[in-house]
């Protein structure tokens, strides 16, 4: 036994005690934290804890109108999938649709009505009650209506369809205002105009990609953001792989390779804005080359006389032999189909030329081509009220003149989605009362005096009649799948509330949007086939709500007869650009981001985090520059450059992108918000801002690809955040490849860059 003196003993006891304390604390600290089992006070009848329920509804993240099934557990939305019964998306859903949850649960949502307490844009808001908010607005509306100045009220909404659109029309009609406007940056004005002119149709037709065997796309990024991406992706998939022994051929013509271009068999870069000339060049070869033998051949020959193959080759930069072979295979393939997006100052003419190509190849009104849609069962098509750029300029001018006294904004964000040249923000200053019904504090809502926030679509009643339709009559009811999270109201209910409080209650008597909806659907029920086996309206209504979709199989007769007068209206004007080629050597090609769309999805973290499919960049903006151009300008990836147009300048890092023409630079739309919540704010740049005010003459729509810019290096660099290390395969033989076919002209310049085309 070693000798331990008193001091030693005390030391040991001390050490032991400290150790015991430490041991005690150690175990205490690694214990599970206390968890609670909180029961319901009264058990809900419509769910069991831990058991998922799926509710069908309609997606509102873009204008396509896909059907969704939402997985609900314990009353909370957990997952959004496509509704398999819905003919538009057939069970599929894009990333934007799936991220609807991030709109619902977004931490930056507006949680209740507010009013601006200081100067506009200061961000100083105070919470008010719904009664205060509604009476404040309704009082003003009441005064204006009573004085017969209802036309000084403008309702500026995102595009809506169905019975909400009817309610808007009734509300504005009762007030005596014609200023019911929808503004969507991505609304295809030229497509409607061209179809109206060529087909005499006021609705978009159904493009039957699924049954086509040769798809020729003039810049329509139908796999990315063009009108109905999920449906067209499905059709594309079926065209390529859905039929035994047939693989549809697909050629994409555009100055910058889009997601669709990357999926094409052949990607052809025609000079920006000359796509219509190319279409007419093809038409010329089809007619003059003796392929087309219709009775109106002579009229066609006359109108196409100037668009010879050589002339077209010189104008578009596409080699003559490519034009002739394209024309021949387009004409000779049964079930060919041409589609297009007209983003230049000659957009309508371009799409009319595309329609002409379809006509000559016999694709109109037939399976595998263009099929005409029946009129929607109820409501209106949003196009009737869609405001073109010209209309928005008129609205801004009216506001400056003091002719607009109340502006009600619903879900659209014109301050972000209009070029600075429109001076829309300044015009808003002149409007005495701005009311926003947005769910988020976006750039336009920040300027509002009163904010009456709407539910998200997952919390409200609504319905939709998809546009473009699917060839037969279809509609869908959108039901609330969760109890509203905050003190918000459905857009329809806000309008009904305003109507009641401003003395329009007699003409607009419904107590709620749900009631309005049921009345509308009762009419559809009464009109519809009596042999549906439904026992009364209630059963019909429940079955529609439960299925999430309703349809009638009646189609319009196939076939198409052309009004001969249309032929004479065919012709192309060269595209016009904002800015001279000497000062501004590049054409800016802004495109709808596959993830952020027109900027509406920038506040959704999943969408910010989802890599762009072609560049793999996340969380930011970039400007795509051809490698040869970049080399010439001594730029590499990550170099910050100023992109200057005659109308403004923005800053973004360079992304060297091999599949873009050397004199074109491209930027995704969607970033560059100065408001719109923590995920969107102060991130990247907004190319819409610097667009020149170039109008498409027939529609008054903004020609979005008609601005010239210059690129000025700033000497600063940033690291681009992206998931892909390299755009090249680097000889790893990951995919079996074939060399890209090139077509001379601009494409010849690309020839030096070894682009590889995946061929499966």
């Amino acid at each position, binding site marked *: 036994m070693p000798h331990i003196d008193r001091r030693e003993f005390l030391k040991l006891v001390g050490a032991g005690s400290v*150790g015991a304390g430490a041991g*005690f604390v150690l175990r*205490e600290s690694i214990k599970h934290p206390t968890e609670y089992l*909180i029961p319901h006070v009264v058990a809900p009848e419509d769910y069991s*804890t*831990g058991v998922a329920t799926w509710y069908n509804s309609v997606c509102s993240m873009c204008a396509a109108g896909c059907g969704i099934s939402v997985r609900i557990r314990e009353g909370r939305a957990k997952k959004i999938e496509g509704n398999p019964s819905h003919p538009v998306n057939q069970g599929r859903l894009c990333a934007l649709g799936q991220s609807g949850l991030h709109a619902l649960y977004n931490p930056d949502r507006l949680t209740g009505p507010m009013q601006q307490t200081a100067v506009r844009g200061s961000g100083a808001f105070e919470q008010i009650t719904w009664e205060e908010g509604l009476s404040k607005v309704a009082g003003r509306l009441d005064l204006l209506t009573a004085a017969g100045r209802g036309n000084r009220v403008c309702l500026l909404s995102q595009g809506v369809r169905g019975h909400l659109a009817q309610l808007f029309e009734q509300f504005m009609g009762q007030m005596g205002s014609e200023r019911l406007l929808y503004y969507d940056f991505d609304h295809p004005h030229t497509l409607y105009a061209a179809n109206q002119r060529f087909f005499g149709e006021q609705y978009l037709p159904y493009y039957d990609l699924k049954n086509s065997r040769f798809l020729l796309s003039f810049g329509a990024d139908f796999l990315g953001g063009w009108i109905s991406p999920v449906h067209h992706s499905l059709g594309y998939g079926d065209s390529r792989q859905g039929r035994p022994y047939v693989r549809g051929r697909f050629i994409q013509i555009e100055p910058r390779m889009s997601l669709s271009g990357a999926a094409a068999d052949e990607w052809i870069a025609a000079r920006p804005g000359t796509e219509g000339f190319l279409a007419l060049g093809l038409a010329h070869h089809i007619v003059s080359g003796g392929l087309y033998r219709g009775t109106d051949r002579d009229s066609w020959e006359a109108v196409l006389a100037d668009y010879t193959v050589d002339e077209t080759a010189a104008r578009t930069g596409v080699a003559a032999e490519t034009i002739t072979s394209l024309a021949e295979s387009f004409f000779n393939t049964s079930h060919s189909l041409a589609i297009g997006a007209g983003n230049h100052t000659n957009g309508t003419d371009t799409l009319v030329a595309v329609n002409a190509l379809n006509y000559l190849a016999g694709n109109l009104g037939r399976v595998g081509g263009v099929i005409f849609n029946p009129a929607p069962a109820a409501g209106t098509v949003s196009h009737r009220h869609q405001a073109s750029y010209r209309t928005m300029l008129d609205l801004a001018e009216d506001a400056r003149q003091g002719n607009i006294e109340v502006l009600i904004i619903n879900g659209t964000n014109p301050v972000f989605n209009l070029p600075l040249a429109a001076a829309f923000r300044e015009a808003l200053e002149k409007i005495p009362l701005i009311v926003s019904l947005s769910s988020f504090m976006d750039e336009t809502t920040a300027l509002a005096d009163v904010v009456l926030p709407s539910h998200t679509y997952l919390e409200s009643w609504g319905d939709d009649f998809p546009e473009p339709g699917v060839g037969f009559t279809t509609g869908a009811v959108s039901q609330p799948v969760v109890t509203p999270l905050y003190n918000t109201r459905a857009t329809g209910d806000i309008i009904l509330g305003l109507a009641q409080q401003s003395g329009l209650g007699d003409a607009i008597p419904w107590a709620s949007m749900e009631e309005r909806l049921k009345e509308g659907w009762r009419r559809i029920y009464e009109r519809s086939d009596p042999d549906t086996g439904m026992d009364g309206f209630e059963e019909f209504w429940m079955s529609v709500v439960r299925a999430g979709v309703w349809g009638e199989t009646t189609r319009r007769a196939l076939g198409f007869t052309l009004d001969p007068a249309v032929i004479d209206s065919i012709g192309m004007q060269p595209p016009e650009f904002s800015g001279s080629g000497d000062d501004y050597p590049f054409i800016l090609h802004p495109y709808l981001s596959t993830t952020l769309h027109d900027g509406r999805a920038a506040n959704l973290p999943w969408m910010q985090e989802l890599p762009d499919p072609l560049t793999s960049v996340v969380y930011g903006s970039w400007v795509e520059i051809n490698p040869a151009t970049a080399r010439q300008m001594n730029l590499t990836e990550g170099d910050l450059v100023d992109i200057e147009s005659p109308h403004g300048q923005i800053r973004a890092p360079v992304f060297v992108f091999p599949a873009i023409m050397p004199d074109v630079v491209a930027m995704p739309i969607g970033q560059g918000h100065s408001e719109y919540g923590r995920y969107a704010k102060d991130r990247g740049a907004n190319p819409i801002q610097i667009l020149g005010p170039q109008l498409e003459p027939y529609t008054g729509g903004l020609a979005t690809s008609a601005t010239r810019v210059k690129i000025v290096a700033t000497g600063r660099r940033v690291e681009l955040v992206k998931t892909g290390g390299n755009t090249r395969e680097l000889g790893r033989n990951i995919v079996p490849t074939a060399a890209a076919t090139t077509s001379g002209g601009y494409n010849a310049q690309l020839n030096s860059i070894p682009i590889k085309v995946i061929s499966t």
Partner: protein
Amino acid sequence: MNVSIVPALRVLKPAALICAALLVGVVVGYWANAAFLPGTAPEQPIAFSHKVHAADNEIPCQYCHTQADNSISAGVPSVAKCVGCHNEVSTERPQIRRLLDYWNNQEPIPWIKVHDLPDFVHFTHKRHVLADIECQTCHGPVETMDRIQLTSRAMGGGVQHSSWQMGLCLDCHKQHEVENGLDCWTCHK
């Protein structure tokens, strides 16, 4: 020259002793915490007795835990369910008064969770109940407990000082030859 480390060790001896005492202390402290404060039978907001309900009055488990056969969770009865009986039964007892207080205030009872699995384990009551696994297999002899406590038959019915371990699941899955019962993603998905 002889070199010895003994002098150096002699200097270190007091320090070594102190370290040893510290270590023994840690073990004792840890053990004492585990033995006297196991946390496996916490005091609940209402002293609900499973013995009185399940044994003395022979109420079947699923009368209250209604979802055990159709959901991943067995379900805690709503306050309304308790009050359904206790509006009439034993209304004057102090614990029942506490229950009625919650009901009158329309507040849920904050029961403390005893049986807990980590979030990375996907366990579903439905499958186990439908396979005729008795509740007691995992939850122990609940019908004997006045206060619910964490036990395990795998531990001989005694108090188990840690929460459930994976071995418990695997033993049973092996014994019953559960299809895919040993695959990782059966439970970890």
